[in-house]
């Protein structure tokens, strides 16, 4: 257990550097999904320390591109229950220890 604990942060650090997103659940069409993931990755790289700014950046980019009201949550540990417009939800892991959830709803 202790070993795992020690290894985990090291691996997290490693993962932070070479990261790839794992999509947990989505019902977006493929082009939208790739766009959203691209936005997220850009935001993370830019605001590595500030989740709020990263989320804001992603939200604004999505609003501009796909319109109306997007909501973005970035965090390490949270539960959520949301109502979203069909085919406009993405929930994925990123960076080894971050979870992102973005959805569109009016």
């Amino acid at each position, binding site marked *: 257990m202790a070993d795992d604990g020690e290894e985990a942060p090291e691996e997290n650090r490693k993962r932070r550097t070479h990261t790839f997103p794992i999509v947990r659940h989505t019902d977006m069409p493929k082009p939208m999904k790739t766009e959203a993931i691209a936005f997220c990755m850009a935001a993370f790289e830019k605001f590595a320390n500030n989740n709020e700014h990263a989320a804001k950046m992603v939200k604004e980019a999505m609003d501009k591109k796909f319109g109306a009201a997007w909501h973005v949550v970035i965090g390490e540990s949270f539960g959520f229950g949301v*109502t979203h*417009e*069909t085919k406009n939800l993405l929930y994925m892991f990123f960076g080894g220890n971050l979870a992102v959830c973005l959805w569109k709803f009016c």
Partner: protein
Amino acid sequence: MPTSNAAAPVKKKVLGAKSQKATNKRKEEDDDNGDSSWEERVQGKLIKPADQLELTDAELKEEITRILTAKNPHAPQNIVRYSFKEGAFKLTSAVDQMAVHFVLDGCLIHQDSDEARRLAAHKDLAEESLAVDSGPGEEKTDILDAPRDGGEEEEAGEDDRADSVASKTNNQEPKSTNQFNYIQRASQTLNNALRDRSCQTTPPPRRNYSAAASQWDIYDAYVEELHKQEMKKEQQKSRKDGDKNQKKLTLKDTAGDDKHEMRTAIKLLERMVNQNTCHEIAQDFKYFEDAADEFREPEGTLLPLWKFSYEKAKLMCVTALCWNEKYPDLFAVGLGSYEFSKQGRGMVLFYTLKNCTFPEYIFPTPSGVLCLDIHKKHSYLVAVGFYDGCVGVYNLKNKGLEPQYKSTSNTGKHTDPVWQVCWQKDDLDNKQSFYSVSSDGRVVSWTLIQNELIFSDAIRLSLTGPVSEGPDGLGEVTTAAGTCMDFHRQMDSLFLVGTEEGNIHKCSRSYSSQYLHTFHAHNTAVDAVKWNPFHPQVFISCSSDWTVKVWDHSVSTPMFTFELNASVGDVSWAPYSSTVFAAVTIEGLVHVFDLSINKYQAICHQPVVSRNKSKLTHLAFNPIHPIIIVGDNRGCVISLKLSPNLRKKPKCKKGQELPEGHEVEVAKMEKILSLLRDPEQSAH
């Protein structure tokens, strides 16, 4: 000059009425003067009016003093009014001396007055957009003051100025318009009626979703991903290695996989469709129990269920039927021909009850099939005996249509048609083996060793006996033609062989030259001989001499004989009861007997196919379900359900457990036999 002219008449107007005449005179004089001066100027003549006073010069020079007072000559000097208070007439002291000659109401208002301010504000609203210039303010006051003078020129000039000012500058103060040159007019256009309209669009479709993100979740997900990636890399590596060697095979496999998946899917679909079309039959098969049987004791009926036929098999005769022990819905049909002259091709078909329209497996054979047997344990092995004397073993697991093993003339095939094949239990080396009997008089044991069939003659059937002495003294061995065979279930080595001559020989595997016993069973060839599944001593035989006989192998004479009025093609014991058996005849009838119910007659004889068209050749009981299959000479197999009467179990006494099982069946049969034996013994 103009000003003095203007001033003079004003002064004169102020004068009182008394001096009016004088003033008039003076006016006239003045006028005359003025006139005369004008006239002088114009004409140079002096005109006097007709009624003018003629005065002398001295009178003219006389000064007459006149006193002008401000008294109104027309005003009464003494006004007396009656005063009710004092009750007397009183003289009003002061009398109004004002005489109003002319009144003219002006339309000017002082700019500082309230009304003017109100007007200004009102006009301001209209002219707000215009630019403001403070300049004209002073000029405007001049404009307002100017009309008091009343000079036309001035007015005109100032009006012009006012206009120009108004046009040049966007005035702060509203332009006051006079009533002569400007008219205000208003009108109201038609306003269209107002209407309220509202609508609500359908909201975009929405869904709820909830999840929880936590560190361990994320960690686990990543670990899994990495693992998957590693697996992929390994697979790719192995593929690359294997690729070089097996590129083509892999390609074929993938193509085959697709077909295989398609095949299973299509197969399932076919079965579903068949089940739906034959829905009622499936229901009958499962659940129908003929209720009329209660009233019909002891008889029973056979309910026709599915009918299996295959197009290409329509010309062939069903020569063998066998159920699969492991999959009780699968049965094998051997097709060939019994006619000596009409020998052609044959077929082995496997049908399943789940699909009544098309066989599961089809094996076309070059020669007609006469018999087949499915291995009890390895149910994919099927032994087949052919008309040309060959035997073959098909492996259902193999994909090809050829038998896995086949005997050839080198490897000891029979020289005459093979009438019966029987699988044996696996020997000590786990090799499968089976026996075959043929018209050439040989009973041969075949063993499957790797890729070959190894044969060994078990026994050579001879006519009169194993060894007989011919006229020459030499042992002439004439062979009998074996037509059927059955092995005892419990005692491995014991088996029966039926011959063309109508004899049934009891033989043992250990003795290859001698029979244990011979039964002179029938007058014609024995078509089938079968051991009783329960009772170890009983067997049944049938033949084309219209009889079915039940034997006890320790007794030389048959226990029971049944005349069926037609050549009997096949007879078979029921697997659920030791006293029930069924037989088929060429008339198209199926006879079912139950010895415990009726020892002399069939409890059911039912035509299954029309007499004229086809003949029944074989039948087989299903080991589990209460159905039988019957084959005819047209390649058609009909399945029938046995009604409850036909599968009766012995009645139990109240309180006792339902007796079932092997021993009971044996006891049942024993009871019947003992009834027969006792009278015999007593007779003897």
